């Protein structure tokens, strides 16, 4: 019995060796008998095991790829969230007093300081500042006043080292109110600089410490 088993194993190993040998011709045409059936069974078992092993490896690889992809997506999502956070800093309005274009100390200066940090952290970023006025005052004068407000913020940034060619200026005068009402609250909101990205806004780095 032991011998028979050993023989079967021997045949199986031979068969396996032949199978794994890759290209070696099979010289003995087996005659179906008890042993060969067992050997065939063993060969099938062995193939199944091999298949299982391969499946396992593929599964592991798939999982790994999935995990890498998820990590990459997570990174992209983080990057996008960061970019959006940076853009939110850029989009914050700078507001002005009536018929004035000077940068007010306090909140408006803090807003500009954050924008300055963003421009410093993102060397490829170029922006446009669009100045706006409230509906009071002459329509044509308000166009000039809006430009004066955009230039005022631009000067604040370039005085602190930002290259002038990274900051474009435009004016919408009183033509583009964010609040169309005619009261103090609306006028205060409408007297503003708006910032927009010209180039380099796809991926933005959050400045250190923010």
């Amino acid at each position, binding site marked *: 019995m032991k011998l028979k088993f050993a023989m079967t194993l021997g045949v199986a190993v031979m068969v396996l060796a032949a199978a794994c040998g890759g290209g070696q011709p099979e010289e003995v045409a087996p005659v179906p008998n008890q042993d060969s059936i067992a050997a065939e069974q063993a060969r099938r078992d062995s193939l199944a095991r091999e298949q299982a092993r391969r499946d396992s490896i593929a599964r592991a690889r798939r999982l790994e790829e999935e995990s890498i992809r998820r990590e990459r997506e997570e990174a992209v999502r983080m990057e996008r969230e960061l970019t959006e956070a940076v853009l939110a800093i850029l989009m914050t309005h700078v507001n002005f007093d009536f018929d004035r274009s000077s940068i007010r100390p306090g909140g408006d200066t803090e807003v500009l300081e954050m924008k300055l940090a963003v421009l410093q952290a993102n060397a490829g970023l170029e922006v446009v500042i669009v100045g706006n006025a409230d509906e009071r005052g*002459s329509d*044509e*004068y308000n166009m*000039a006043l809006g430009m004066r407000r955009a230039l005022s913020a631009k000067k604040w940034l370039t005085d602190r080292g930002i290259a002038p060619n990274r900051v474009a200026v*435009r004016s919408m005068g009183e033509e583009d109110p964010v609040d169309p009402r005619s009261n103090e609250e609306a006028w205060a909101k409408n007297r503003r600089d708006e910032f927009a990205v010209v180039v380099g806004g796809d991926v933005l780095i959050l400045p250190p410490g923010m």
Partner: protein
Amino acid sequence: MTRLCRAARSVLTLAVAALVLTAAPLAAQDPPIEQGVRIGITYTPGLRPGMLVLGGARGVVLDSVRAILQRDLRYSDRFEMITLPGGDSLFLGSAGAFVNHSLYAALGASFAVAIRADADTATAQVTLYDVRGETARRTIALVLKPLDDPDFRMSVHRVADDIVRAASGEPGSAATRLLFIQRGRLRRVDFDGADVATISPFGVAAFSPAWAPGGDQIVYTELSEGWGRLVVGDPLGDVFLPVPETEGLLNYAAAFSPDGALVAFARSGDEGTEVYTYNLARDCCLQRLTVGRFSDNLSPTFSPDGRRIAFVSTRAGLPQIYVMAADGTGQELFAPFDYGVTGSSLAPEWSPDGTRIAFHRDVVGSPQVFIMDARSRMVRQLTSAGRNEDPTWAPDGRHIAFISSRTGRRQIWVIDVETGRVRQLTQAGDTRLPAWSPRIPESTNP
């Protein structure tokens, strides 16, 4: 009230009948009133000559001609329009050659206008009578166009202007239009408030329109994303061509030179806001006229001789009115102001005769329309009710259109500079930046 009117009307009819009966003998005497006949009309003769538009043959077209003429002559503010209650003036017939000068004189008229239609030729003869001199001063032929003809109203306005000139020696301003901005669209309206139409295409924000001297071209700014280019074209057409070298920059507040060759405008950019000219006739030669550095210069307006440009500058802090030669030299303060007291002064426009400049100036936080004598530089405030801004001269040099919020919403109003009389021109929506045309030439009407 109705009874009173009826009573007044019957008194008047009797009086007119009595006068007509006695008119022939009265005509021989001077003055006719001495006969003791009293006319029951509550008309007090003022400094202005009385004007009577006579009735005559009826008809839809003729009635409209009469109504438009009557209103144009009233809007000229040069005459005391004599209207009889209940439309009795319609019965003061002018059929045939019979003209009852003494009757018109008794009614207070210095001038009478008769409209006689010739059905065969579809024309009308509009005659202005000098009632005191008992002569026909001027007869104008009017081609009677159908009411729905786009030029119908303008053709009557032209006759009204001819009558104003023949009667007063001064130009009228009936055959004119105004441009204005309403919710971002450039629109136009006839001087009497009729025929409102949109000029600028949908989706384009229009700004600061102005007329070329001939009245056949206009310029305005097309705003987009904080940029503004100037475009020039026919106000009745739909083709507007950009002024070269104004693309991709913010240009506005354009004004033509009196010869139509130059367009002056404000440009806002990295240098602030400065006045430039571009030579449209030679299609070249962009020239910068002001150098502000820390101040803004804008809203140029040529003197009618083309030699000077008035403009707004913030060089003294608040915006005020300055003047320079048309080449930019000799810049100086134009409208005097008290530093720290006088409010912002903006939107100057030189009068067609060159003697005055209209502008608006902040008075206790509200803009008001002022005029300044160009020679003496004496300044006079014209308005006080509500916010009144952006004045623009009529070609008669006597009327100014401006934006007023006196009824709540910003509308175009017209003021007679001589008398201070005002009328509202537009009725609906928020109107801004009016520009009054020169007399509209016949050829540009469709």
